């Protein structure tokens, strides 16, 4: 079964903030084959240097404001994103976050899959500050399934999506990621 793993880089946590980069990876859960579906910088119409130039993403990744200012328009990116959302069952690490941005823009996948972050939290069982289990970061989940492989999240959409795809493949292989969950 082929699925798409999506990752968005944004200027904030609110869906009204800007999407600045889209990454998507096709993962064949049976063969383990991966393929780049989307790896693009985008400029939404409401992105401005003055309003978004100090966003966290620009000080915690290789992304620059200038990359975004010279990126393809949201209108062009949206069409490519729409094809992925129509053609594949889709998930994302912290699916609720990424999908909230899609929903705000009138986009949602035809078929969604369980969130690997939620599924991983049941396995990692990291105590949360208010009881229960906390949601693991991608690095924490990676460290559980790939011990010894030091990974620092780049906060670049394609690179993150690729690591998420590998994580999902590992979780699925050991029975920790059920497509029907």
């Amino acid at each position: 079964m082929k699925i798409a793993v999506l990752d968005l880089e944004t200027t904030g946590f609110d869906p009204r903030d800007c999407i600045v980069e889209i990454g998507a990876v096709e993962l064949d859960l049976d063969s383990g084959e991966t393929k780049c579906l989307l790896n693009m910088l985008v400029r939404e119409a409401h992105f401005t240097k003055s309003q978004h130039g100090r966003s966290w993403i620009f000080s915690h990744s290789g992304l620059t404001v200038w990359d975004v200012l010279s990126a393809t328009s949201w209108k062009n990116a949206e069409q490519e994103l729409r094809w992925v959302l129509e053609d594949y069952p889709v998930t994302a690490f912290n699916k609720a976050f990424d999908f909230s941005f899609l929903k705000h823009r009138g986009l949602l996948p035809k078929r969604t899959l369980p969130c690997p972050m939620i599924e991983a939290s049941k396995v990692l069982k990291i105590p949360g500050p208010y009881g229960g289990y906390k949601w693991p970061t991608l690095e924490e989940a990676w460290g559980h399934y790939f011990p010894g492989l030091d990974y620092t999240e780049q906060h670049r959409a394609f690179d993150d999506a690729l690591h998420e795809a590998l994580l999902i493949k590992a979780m699925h292989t050991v029975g920790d990621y059920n497509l029907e969950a």
Partner: protein
Amino acid sequence: MKFSREYTKLQDRVFSTIRGHSYYNEGEVIECQTPHRVLRARVLLKVAMRFRNIPECLLQYDTDSPELSAAECREEIRSLYRGDPPDDDDIMTIYWLEKLSEAK
């Protein structure tokens, strides 16, 4: 599966290796041959991707070279191929293997 030297990763219970083929399947038990020993290992996980997309941490682990960049690691891997070294666009397979026993 041949290893050209005694890589540090071969001391780990589970280790990964990057190959230009996809002969082996998940669950299969294979022999890993180093210059000095033979290990039996089970294929736990198999993924495939373009050489250029393989994450840096995997490339560094594979080559025992945490100080090298991804591009340098790919060059290191290419140097191990005698005939037809992989291009960045070639599809490579990454196997995760679980060591079962040492045959000799």
